[in-house]
Every structure is written in C-alpha cells, then in structure tokens.
C-alpha cells in the first residue's frame, strides 16, 4: 500500500534512462544540425556585430547627439530629452559607455526582430480563433518558463555567444507585442470595419487603412512592454556570453562588488526609462486626434 502514503512515481532507473535517451537524441540532433543552424543565423550575427561596432566606433558625442535627437523627434518633450542627455553623460562619466552601446545594440536588434516576427503573427492570430487558441499557450510558456531552462538547449545547439543570447532575449520579449497586436486588431470598431467593406476595400486595404492604424495605441503598448522585457533579460543573456551592461552585473554578483553592481544596474534602468518614456510619448503624439474634443 505504498501508493497511499507516497505518490506512485516512475522508479529512478527508468527516469534516468528516459532523461539520458532524450539528451542523447538532442545531442545527436545538435551535432548533425548545429552548424547548419548556426550558418542560418550568420547574417543576423553579422548585422548585430556591425551595428554594435558602429555604435562603439562612432565618436561618443555623435551617438549622444543622434540619440538625443531621436528622443526629441519622437517625444517632443523637453523633460524626456534633457533627462536622456543627462543620463547618457553620467553613463559615460562613470565608464559604462561601451557596455551601454553593446546593450543598446542588442536591445535594438531584438526589438526589431520581435516586431518583424511578432506583428505578422499577431495579425494572423487576430484573424483566426483557432490560431489564437493554439498560439496563446505557447506564449504563456515563453513568458513563464524560467529562461535558464531554454538556455540549456539553445547553448547545446549554438554554443555561447551573441546569437544564442539574442534568441533567449527574443523568446522572452516577443509575447507582449504578439498578444497586444492580436488584441488591438480584435478590438477595432466593427462599424468602421463594415464601412471599409462597404466601400469595397480589399483585405490589404482594410488592414493598412483601418485595422493597423486603429489598433496602433494597443500595438505601441505591446512594443513598449517588449522593450522592457528585452532589457530585463540583459543580465541573463550575459550568462551565455553576451557582452554589455549585464556582464559587469554578473561579475559584481560573483565577487560582491556592490558599487559596480549598482552603477551598471542603474544604467540599465536609465535605458529602460528612456525607451519607455520616449515610446509612450511617441504613441500619445500619434493619437493626438483622439483627444481633440469639439468645443
């Protein structure tokens, strides 16, 4: 009557055999395919490296000027622009400029990838209830599975470096933009959609004229969350060799360098706030026509 007192479980030998078989299978798979998959990611890696080098090689004051300029153009807010300039100067003064550039590069590329992949997936999901029912649980797994778990197979497959780091970050940060694109399109006013149909819109015309513009505020909220999620993964990615602000943090943890940890942590926070405030202000500006109440 063992099973009354203890959960009847597979015995240790079977479980070990099972784990070993699966691991061996996967190792065989990664030996057979690892190179091919790595080659497939090559262009992405080159692009990322190029972008990183560009940010680092360009004189700091040019980068500073461009970032501050972009923030101004997007937000048209003095506070946000000034805050950005001050934050970047402090980052430079405290010797974190180069690491910050590396982090900016990987975040920018991750965001780009997330949008390029996430937007079409979100659009497809909004068109089919069945697809939505299939993809939603996958997104749940992507967002809640501890990232260390999928770190293992990715490292087994691709080794250590930028591309596996990029994958880890993208996996974690893509769900919000997919979810909110899907949600935004589903919430578009049915009567406006009907009007688009009534005037003879094709599917593309409806998507570009009505569905995307009307769901833009929601999609922007998703983009914002995606960027925040990507930044949250910077330290984890540094575990597998992604350089940037995450590495000094990791080092600080290992050696109990309190100040170094705090400084680099604050730099990550500063970047997060810059991205967040700028993208939100940009989103608001796109929606100006909504607040204009008639008088």
């Amino acid at each position, binding site marked *: 009557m063992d099973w009354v007192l203890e959960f009847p479980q597979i015995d240790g030998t079977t479980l070990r055999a099972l784990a070993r078989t699966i691991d061996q299978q996967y190792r065989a798979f990664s030996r057979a395919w690892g190179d091919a998959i790595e080659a497939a990611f090559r262009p992405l890696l080159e692009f990322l490296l190029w972008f990183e080098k560009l940010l680092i090689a360009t004189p700091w004051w040019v980068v500073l000027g461009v970032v501050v300029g972009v923030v101004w153009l997007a937000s048209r807010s003095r506070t946000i622009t000034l805050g950005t300039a001050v934050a970047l100067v402090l980052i430079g003064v405290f010797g974190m400029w180069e690491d910050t550039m590396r982090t900016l590069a990987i975040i920018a590329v991750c965001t780009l990838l997330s949008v390029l992949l996430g937007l079409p997936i979100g659009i497809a999901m909004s068109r089919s209830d069945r697809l939505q029912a299939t993809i939603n649980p996958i997104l749940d797994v992507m967002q809640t599975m501890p990232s260390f778990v999928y770190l293992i197979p990715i490292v087994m497959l691709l080794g250590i470096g930028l591309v596996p780091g990029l994958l880890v970050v993208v996996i974690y940060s893509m769900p919000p933009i997919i979810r909110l694109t899907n949600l935004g399109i589903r919430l578009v006013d049915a009567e406006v959609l*009907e*009007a688009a*149909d009534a*005037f*003879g*819109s094709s599917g593309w015309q409806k998507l570009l004229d009505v569905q995307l513009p009307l769901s833009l505020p929601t999609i922007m909220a998703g983009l914002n969350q995606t960027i925040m999620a990507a930044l949250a993964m910077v330290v984890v990615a540094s575990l597998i060799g992604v350089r940037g602000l995450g590495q000094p943090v990791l080092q600080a943890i290992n050696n109990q360098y309190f100040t170094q940890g705090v400084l680099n942590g604050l730099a990550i926070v500063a970047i997060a706030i810059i991205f967040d405030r700028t993208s939100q202000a940009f989103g608001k500006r796109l929606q100006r026509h909504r607040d204009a*109440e*008639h008088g």
Partner: protein
Amino acid sequence: MADPAIRIRNLFKIFGPRDKALIERVMAGMTKAELQSDPAHTLGLRDINIDMRKGTIQVVMGLSGSGKSTLVRHINRLIEPTAGEILIEGEDVTAMTPDRLRAFRRRQVSMVFQRFALLPHKTVLDNVTYGLRIAGVGRSDRERAAGEWVERVGLSGYENSFPAQLSGGMQQRVGLARALATDADILLMDEPFSALDPLIRSDMQAILLELQKDLKKTVVFITHDLDEALRLGDRIAILRDGAIVQQGNPQDIVMSPADDYVAAFVAEVNRGKVVKVETIMRPLSPDSSALSARSALVEGTSLEAAARSMTEAEATEAVVLDSGGHPVGTVTMRDVIGAMVPSGDEGRGHRGAAALAAEAIG
C-alpha cells in the same frame, strides 16, 4: 413604370451555422419565436419581396431587432443571404464573385452608418476621399471631388479637422459626403440620424431632401422613427420579426394600417400633415355642387392646409384640381375633419401600441 433599381425576391436570412438546413422549415412557416428554441439560430429575415424605385427614397421602418439593419446589409452583401436574390439593374448581387462584388461596392452602392464609422485618424477631407482612394482614383482628382462634397454638406473650413473635433451632426455630414463622393447611384442609410439630437436630426433630414432634389439617388433609408419615415419616404416598408407587414406610400400606411403593429406606429401621427386631399376625395359627378364651390384645392394639399383654406373661404365643400387645373374630385369639410381624427374603430391601435411597447421592452 421604369424598372426598379433594387429588386429583392424571396429573401430569407437565418443567422447561425446550419442556416441552409433550417431554411426549408422556415419556408414552410416556422416563425421567429419557434426558431428561438434553437439557441444557435436566429431568424433575421423571412420572405422579403420588395421593389425599390430608381431615384426615390425607400424607407424601411420597424422596432429594434425587427431586421432593418440585416435587410439593408443584404443589398451590398455585407451579410450573405440564406436564400433569395437581390437584383440591381438586373444583376444578382448574391451571385457576384468577390472581385465583382468589390467593384460593385466601389462604384454602384455606398453607405452611411448610424455611428458614423469615420476613420478617427484621418482628417475630414481624407475621410471624404476614402471611397475614391479605395477605388484607386488619383490624389488630385479625389481631393477635388471631395472638396466639392465637403462644401455641399456645409463643412467648408473643416477640411483639416479630425472627426473627434466635430459634433455628431457634423460627423454625420462627413459620413454623408463620404458616401456621396463615390457617385454611386444607390445610397444605403442605416439609421443615419438616430444618434443625433432632435433639432440636428431635423436639419440633417432637410439636407438630405435638398440634396436628393437634384441628385435623384436611389436611397434606402432605415429608421425606427415614423415622423422621419413620413418626412423622407416616397415609399415605406414596415418590418416586424424579419417580415414585411406592410408597404406603400406614407398615406397608405397612415390611412390603412395593415395590422395592430402598424396601427401602433401610426397612432400618434398628425394625419392632418401627412394625408393629402386626393386620398379622401369623392369621385366627381357632373351635377356636383362642388364644381361651383367657392374653394378649390390642388392635389398634394395636406388635410390641415385644406381645412385652413376652406375655413377661410367659408366653404363646406371644395373641388380638387390636378396640377393642370382640371377638377378631379371633391371633398367636404366633414370628410377632411373626419380623416384627420382616427375613428373609434381605429382606437384599437392604441391598445395595440401599449401591447407592442410591452413586447419591445420585454
């Protein structure tokens, strides 16, 4: 008489996944209430037959849920019918290919919506050009055309405003201009003025009538408001539970309601304004004393106006003249007054009204 612009034949609509399987039973006489026992299906329309004449305003009226929106959406096939056909200039809309249907919607039919359905992120001008842009008209052409329509609906100076900056009435003018800009012959209007304040609504009705005078579109106008129906409609069809219970010109509806449902609608109507003298006139007899009467009325005079002019002329009898000035009939003051006040028999209509109101709320 000219061919109808829109001819609807034996149109049925059942909402639900197995509509085609249920259609035979509905055709055999199953009612909306009986179908209600099947929660997945709703009877939208039952055996609609109607001819809408070119260049006139056809009003479709009924209580909420009677199928008005469903009916009008079949004309441009925003809703697929379960059975039946819709012929426009002889072509069956229900048989159009997707390409043909898009072309049809771009050029031959346009629509105005109850809640305006404007693009909130586009300016007034860009909203008005919307249909033309969809149809592939070049920028300068469509902006010229749209500019004219903006002016005709009285929105000059607001070209660069966003919809949210305009009042409801002005937004619906944008909706109207957008619909007119494509030059389609058929204009579908689904309760276009129902969301507006009464005074604005009356303004909008006037604008529509004014435009219609020289545009002569075939307008299908949906409303639940009888006053609006009587003011705008050349012909009125009344829907109940997805079926047409009566169709005719406004006076037919007011003078001889087909059942309690219609009687309830017309019970509160000021007949003196709606009913014309020719509707109640007696045939001309050669020895009629009215021929020498002191009062003459032209066809199209309302009972109210007739009573006023007969009173002024102190006449108890009047002769009715056609537009050429030829006598066509006679009316007495007694007829006129009698027709303005519903008879005791029709008082039934009031009880009907109460019952229907209860039904609508319940």
